[in-house]
């Protein structure tokens, strides 16, 4: 048996090699639309050589063979062949030499750099194109206005490790898989959460999709799946599916929906109806179809990049605005190139009907709620400006992306607030907000709504994607530009600062309330600014756990309680004079200890036997703490507490508020000053 064959890359040699594999008829191969597309595609990638590996065991075909083909009298076995494509001229001599001596490391590097991918050839008469992974056009990877989903496929060619960044494509065999099955198969390959080795074959997907009866082969041949069956197959793969009906969407809305998902690394199955373009204004309905959307181009002329089993991988699909039917005024054309590498005139158009996206199981909210929330905030902004007669010269825009919290945190940690346009105050404000955000706990998956004002970064809203539609899902607002964020908050707070106004406005917009997290966002705005904890943090410092416990402070595993401890929740009868009656003037050993606890209560006591602040608080987290003493006949407080006040940047600014607290609590007239504590 021939171990392998190498030919110069030409359409006739490619067709001949395919014919060589399992004796397919040359005209069938040569005239096949997919072969034509793949040939032109590879020609564009400057393919020079093709290597045929005549015997290859492909997991996907092996499964399909086991499920159906094995019982065919004329079946040609379970073995497949594989074609490898290179943008470098190779020959038998150099490959033989490499395999014999394994000395030419440079050649291995060259083979890898020039590897364009592979195509499995199945032993089937007409539908022989199996798993095909081809490198996308460089422009698809490098252009800033394009984005595509890709994964790394590792290839072993006679022991030579090769790899290609791609998403697997294959044509429907019209027996164990129809177009909807192959679309899902490619979508599973594109999902970064799925190990490539565990992706089921097309026959398994079809069996899972239909009401499977063990041992029955009546599922095949399969001509198509309903949406319900397709969703069932996705269920079996333990993905969460989200179905969107798009037949009434505009091309712009549809493209935006594609962008949100591709930007989130989520593959999309697109279903619709094919129309033949007879002339500029005449379209003939043909059949239904499904493709996998793997990328997009967003510029003056938007486009999608799809795996279309009628054509090939990474097919460019442009929008065509035309009156296709009474209520249909746009569709997607499938583009192909001619021999001179120019785009041919499209002869078919796909009118989208629905899209299905696959997310991780925990992502229970589709992007719909995130989109609605962002649109409603935008609507509120525009309307508030309008009713107040303010020109809408500053546009509020947004983009949406599904992200994991680790990625969000990493990005937030790396924000350079100065570079984002903040002045010194803004930098400090954003940094403090960042600290709060990073040290809080969140669910793993979030829809991130990134708002820009006048084209510049403003703030992000995080919507917990694992929440329920009725939930309070806005988990954080991340400030990127203080002034821009504040301008929006100030504007919206005209509604939120008066509960009656807000309630009466929300009452009239029930759909906004029900199908978005607008209320959750508006509540969050209030929480962020006015919450009691925020007040305590600002006035008395963030909570600190006591940094250590002295040996004198515990006995037989019990923490000592300070018997002199008194907690002052608010104004009361006991006077300051009474509390401080035992303090001796100018005696360093005579002082009281105090602390502001978690709830903002002032606690005062004496330090007995070296039992300090933690015995006042019960060893619980607290805020600023220090000493109260008499010096030259005047009362002073400082922040001397190694356990609580030790790592505040400027503890003195909290002491001013602590003095106010003393005055609030005690009814008599007295004066306290602050003294800076230098450890």
């Amino acid at each position, binding site marked *: 048996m021939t171990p392998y064959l190498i030919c110069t890359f030409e359409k006739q040699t490619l067709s001949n090699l395919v014919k060589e594999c399992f004796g397919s008829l040359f005209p069938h191969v040569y005239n096949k639309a997919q072969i034509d597309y793949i040939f032109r595609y590879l020609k564009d990638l400057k393919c020079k050589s093709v290597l045929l590996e005549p015997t290859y065991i492909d997991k996907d075909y092996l499964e399909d063979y086991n499920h159906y083909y094995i019982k065919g009298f004329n079946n040609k076995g379970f073995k497949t062949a594989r074609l490898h494509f290179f943008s470098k001229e190779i020959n038998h001599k150099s490959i033989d030499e490499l395999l014999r001596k394994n000395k030419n490391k440079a050649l291995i590097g060259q083979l890898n750099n020039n590897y364009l991918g592979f195509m499995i050839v199945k032993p089937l008469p007409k539908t022989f194109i199996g798993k095909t992974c081809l490198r996308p056009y460089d422009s698809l990877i490098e252009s800033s206005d394009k984005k595509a989903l890709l994964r790394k496929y590792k290839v072993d060619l006679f022991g030579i490790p090769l790899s290609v960044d791609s998403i697997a494509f294959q044509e429907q065999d019209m027996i164990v898989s129809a177009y909807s099955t192959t679309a899902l198969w490619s979508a599973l390959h594109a999902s970064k959460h799925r190990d490539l080795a565990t992706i089921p074959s097309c026959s398994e997907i079809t069996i899972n999709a239909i009401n499977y009866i063990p041992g029955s082969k009546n599922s095949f041949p399969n001509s198509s799946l*309903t*949406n319900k069956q397709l969703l069932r197959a996705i269920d079996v793969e333990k993905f969460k599916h989200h*179905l969107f009906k*798009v037949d009434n969407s505009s091309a712009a809305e549809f493209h935006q929906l594609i962008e949100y998902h591709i930007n989130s690394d989520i593959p999309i199955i697109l279903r619709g109806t094919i129309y033949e373009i007879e002339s500029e204004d005449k379209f003939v309905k043909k059949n*239904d179809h499904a493709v996998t959307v793997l990328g997009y181009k967003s510029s003056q002329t938007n486009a999608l990049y799809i795996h279309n089993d009628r054509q090939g991988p990474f097919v460019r699909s442009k929008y065509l605005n035309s009156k296709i039917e009474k209520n249909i005024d746009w569709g997607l054309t499938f583009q192909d190139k001619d021999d001179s590498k120019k785009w041919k005139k499209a002869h078919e158009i796909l009118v989208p009907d629905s899209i299905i996206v696959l997310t991780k199981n925990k992502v229970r909210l589709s992007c719909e709620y995130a989109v609605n929330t962002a649109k409603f905030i935008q609507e509120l902004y525009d309307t508030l400006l309008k009713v*107040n007669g*303010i020109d809408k010269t500053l546009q509020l825009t947004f983009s949406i992306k599904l992200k994991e919290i680790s990625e969000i945190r990493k990005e937030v940690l790396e924000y350079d607030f100065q570079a984002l346009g903040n002045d010194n105050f803004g930098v400090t404000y954003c940094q403090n907000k960042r600290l709060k955000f990073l040290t809080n706990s969140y669910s793993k998956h979030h829809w991130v709504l990134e708002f820009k004002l006048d084209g510049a970064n403003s703030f992000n809203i995080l919507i917990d994607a694992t929440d329920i539609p009725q939930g309070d899902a806005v988990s954080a607002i991340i400030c990127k530009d203080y002034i821009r964020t504040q301008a*929006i908050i100030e504007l919206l707070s005209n509604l939120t600062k008066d509960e009656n*106004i807000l309630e009466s406005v929300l009452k009239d917009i029930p*759909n906004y309330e029900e199908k978005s997290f607008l209320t959750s966002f508006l509540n969050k705005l209030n929480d962020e600014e006015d919450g009691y904890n925020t007040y305590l943090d600002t006035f008395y410092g963030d909570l600190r756990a006591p940094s250590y416990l002295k040996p004198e402070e515990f006995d037989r595993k019990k923490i000592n309680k300070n018997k002199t401890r008194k907690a002052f929740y608010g104004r009361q009868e006991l006077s300051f004079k009474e509390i401080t009656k035992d303090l001796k003037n100018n005696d360093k050993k005579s002082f009281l200890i105090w602390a502001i606890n978690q709830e903002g209560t002032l606690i005062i006591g004496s330090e007995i036997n070296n039992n300090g602040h933690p015995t006042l608080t019960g060893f619980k987290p607290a805020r600023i703490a220090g000493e109260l003493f008499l010096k030259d006949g005047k009362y002073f407080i400082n922040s001397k507490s190694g356990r609580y006040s030790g790592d505040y940047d400027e503890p003195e600014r909290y002491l001013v508020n602590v003095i106010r607290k003393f005055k609030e609590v005690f009814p008599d007239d007295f004066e306290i000053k602050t003294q800076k504590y230098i450890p």
Partner: protein
Amino acid sequence: MSVYDLLKAASEMTLTDEKISMLKHELKLADKKFEAESKKKLVNEEFLTKIYCV
């Protein structure tokens, strides 16, 4: 208009009764439009079981 001007205008803004009713009117219209669009996008059993064939 600069962002500072917007911030200043927003902080000096007062929602009078007249403005509130204008705001409610505008938002009500937008809400109705949204409701109509949502209905068109509703996925029902018929859509789920629609037969697709080659």
